[in-house]
């Protein structure tokens, strides 16, 4: 067999490979654009299905902020297609107005999640208020420092960085809540678990993709759109079975009680842990 190494290929062979690779890239890009469109419309259909089920099952009011957010997203998506196709000159203004209102609704969803999770756990709610308070003071402080330093804020520097910052605050608020859920073993019902997992996934992917987009610029644009639409579809797929029927959250076990107040219990727990630690270290 008369084989030739790549270094021995002629110009014609190298040209064929280059054309083949370019065609492959073009087909891949077209496929991604098509898949992006499919993901977009499929997620809208799932959101509509979920809203219909919420109305039929009469539990729209149980998670009113979340379902309002979904309704808003659905309406905006449909109107965006119309504006983009038939009124392109109005698209930019429409995008910004709807984006800010959508971001505010997103924060309302976070608030609703906190309310539902911590409703039956006033102690953990107090802990959450402390943690969230400290975090928001830190964010405000950082924003003020930037403002006084004269550095251009994320809003002015880059729209994408501003979006990223807004999403990142939501991501950290959700992270704090997840830590509290894990530490205090807060039981979650099916609806609430699905809501947290779905919304958390959406926010987490959004933060990552926006960060990469702001780092790599236009080169990442196509991947950004693809990942955005895919994450929206996956989130819808998580929410539909989670909210297909209304399942109330489990109530806490109230059989656990001690004949002493919280301060005394904490003191005894602290001393017990400290003695256990001393016992471990003492043997050395």
């Amino acid at each position: 067999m008369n084989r030739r190494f790549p270094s021995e290929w002629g110009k014609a062979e190298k040209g064929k490979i280059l054309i083949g690779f370019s065609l492959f890239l073009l087909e891949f890009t077209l496929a991604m654009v098509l898949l992006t469109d499919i993901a977009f419309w499929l997620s809208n259909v799932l959101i509509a299905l979920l809203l219909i089920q919420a109305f039929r099952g009469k539990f729209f009011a149980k998670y009113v902020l979340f379902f309002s957010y979904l309704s808003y997203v659905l309406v905006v998506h449909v109107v965006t297609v119309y504006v983009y196709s038939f009124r392109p000159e109005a698209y930019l203004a429409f995008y910004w107005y709807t984006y800010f209102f959508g971001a505010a609704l997103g924060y309302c969803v976070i608030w609703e999640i906190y309310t539902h999770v911590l409703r039956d756990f006033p102690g953990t709610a107090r802990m959450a208020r402390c943690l969230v308070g400290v975090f928001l003071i830190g964010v405000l402080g950082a924003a003020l420092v930037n403002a006084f330093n004269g550095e251009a804020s994320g809003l002015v520097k880059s729209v994408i960085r501003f979006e990223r910052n807004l999403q990142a605050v939501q991501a950290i608020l959700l992270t704090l809540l997840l830590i509290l859920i894990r530490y205090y073993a807060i039981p979650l019902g099916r609806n609430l678990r699905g809501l947290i997992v779905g919304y958390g996934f959406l926010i987490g992917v959004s933060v990552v993709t926006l960060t990469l987009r702001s780092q790599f610029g236009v080169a990442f644009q196509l991947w950004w759109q693809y990942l955005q639409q895919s994450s929206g579809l996956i989130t819808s797929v998580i929410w539909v079975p989670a909210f297909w029927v209304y399942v109330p959250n489990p109530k806490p076990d109230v059989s656990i009680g001690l004949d002493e107040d919280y301060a005394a219990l904490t003191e005894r727990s602290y001393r017990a842990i400290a003695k256990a630690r001393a016992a471990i270290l003492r043997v050395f």
Partner: protein
Amino acid sequence: MMFALIFLAAGLGLLGLLLVLFLRMGAQPQDRTDAAAATALLAADAALWAQQLGDRIFSPADLEFILKEAPSLRQKLLRERRGIALLWIAQRKDAARAVMRLHRAVARANIALNPGFEFKLAANYFAFLAACALAECLVWLRGPFASRKVVTSLITVGKRMRSLSEELLEGLDPVLLEEIRNR
């Protein structure tokens, strides 16, 4: 670049936590804490008993006796004592976990919860878990009798470093020195 890494960490951290939550979906939370058992563990005498047992397990007296009377049994003693030591450490961890489980189950529903106390208790608990992990590593690597010497040396070195730093600081303003000592 650093800010980009921080944001990436925030996003990926959230996704990671969600994965943990998703994986534990099937496991029911241990709401039904045995209050009686955990209350017993809180009792002072339980901790004292644990301390006496630990002293006995890690005491070199048995090793010295075996080396004198039956040196051929040394390896067997080390092997079995290592197993007992690790079991004792695991029991301490289980005991602490039961205490914390009870505390968290009560505290989460108690409106009088004090965030400062909770942080202090959590820090103490995680420091305890770290001490257990260190103890287990040392027992695995060096055995229950030899590891005692290593940690004693570490504590001695730490004390020596502290006295050295105090000698160096003697040239400072006495008021400032007192302030540093009291930190």
